């Protein structure tokens, strides 16, 4: 499949996050909650896009994971997304920074960031606290 890579955008729902994948700016944004029953149905296209993007990425890619909630079946998909992104630096095709956000007080989301960072071993992986909503 050699068709030029398109922007990928979906709006958030009560069960799935907002996704904004932009090959022109190298900005990857996943924001909201990921708690669908059919995880692959939602994440499959995101993973496909990332596979395609990382074969020809911008010189600098910045990914923002800003999740309120995710279920265990989304965990594997988030991990696969991070692994896909890591290929950018593994293949020396560019630099990568991942920002993982957690709400002040949400220890579990902080721990999840630490776990992912430990498993994927992306060197530029920052865990950032954001103030609680409203």
């Amino acid at each position, binding site marked *: 499949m050699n068709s030029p890579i398109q922007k990928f955008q979906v709006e958030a729902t009560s069960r799935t996050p907002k996704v904004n994948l932009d090959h022109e700016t190298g900005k990857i944004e996943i924001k909201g909650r990921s708690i669908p*029953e059919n995880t692959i149905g939602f994440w499959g296209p995101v993973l496909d896009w990332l596979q395609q993007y990382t074969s020809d990425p911008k010189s600098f890619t910045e990914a923002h994971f800003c999740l309120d909630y995710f*279920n265990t*079946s989304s965990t*594997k998909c988030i*991990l696969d997304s991070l692994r896909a992104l890591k290929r950018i630096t593994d293949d020396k095709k560019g630099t990568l920074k991942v920002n993982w956000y957690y709400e002040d007080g949400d*220890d*579990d989301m902080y721990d999840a960031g630490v776990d992912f960072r*430990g498993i994927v071993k992306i060197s530029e992986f920052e865990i950032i606290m954001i103030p609680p909503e409203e």
Partner: protein
Amino acid sequence: MPFFGLPDIYDLYQKMHQNNVMLTFKGEVTSELISTVLQIIENKLEQLEESVKVKKKVFNVLVECLQNLYHHVDEIGNNGINDPEVSDTRSAILMIWKEDSGYYIVTGNHLLNENAEMLRNRLDKINALDKAGLENLYNDILSNSGLNSKGGGGLGIIDIARRTGQKLEYYFQTVNDVYSFFSLKTSIITS
């Protein structure tokens, strides 16, 4: 003959009220039902002005409990058995209540006896692990194995155990030669 006479309804109401029952449901757990339950509980946690930590924990654990019911109810009738004792296909029970000590979630569903044995072994294995053991198991499954067809790769129940830091309380009731009823109590201790 109805199980409840009208005078029993007030009784039922009082019992639920006194025990701070936030929600109870019996029936098929569909995707729409899960959305509705989550919305109701999220609103209640907001009204109760719980901390971010408590809100997130209760919500997360509830998601896993509901999705366990959604994915793992053994469909009745697959074996060509028409069994009046368990005739309600995919039907489950759910109850959420609050005590001074925290939030409690009970779920119950039918499953095949052969699966009951497997599940019991899994639960005992998980209950035997300490905090570090649970983390290791969780990360091992996450980094080494794919998702199963149900999506979770068996992570859900481990996630409940690690998030709550409590042992999983469970009970299996044999219904007949084919089916058991599995009840699970999850405790989210807040004080």
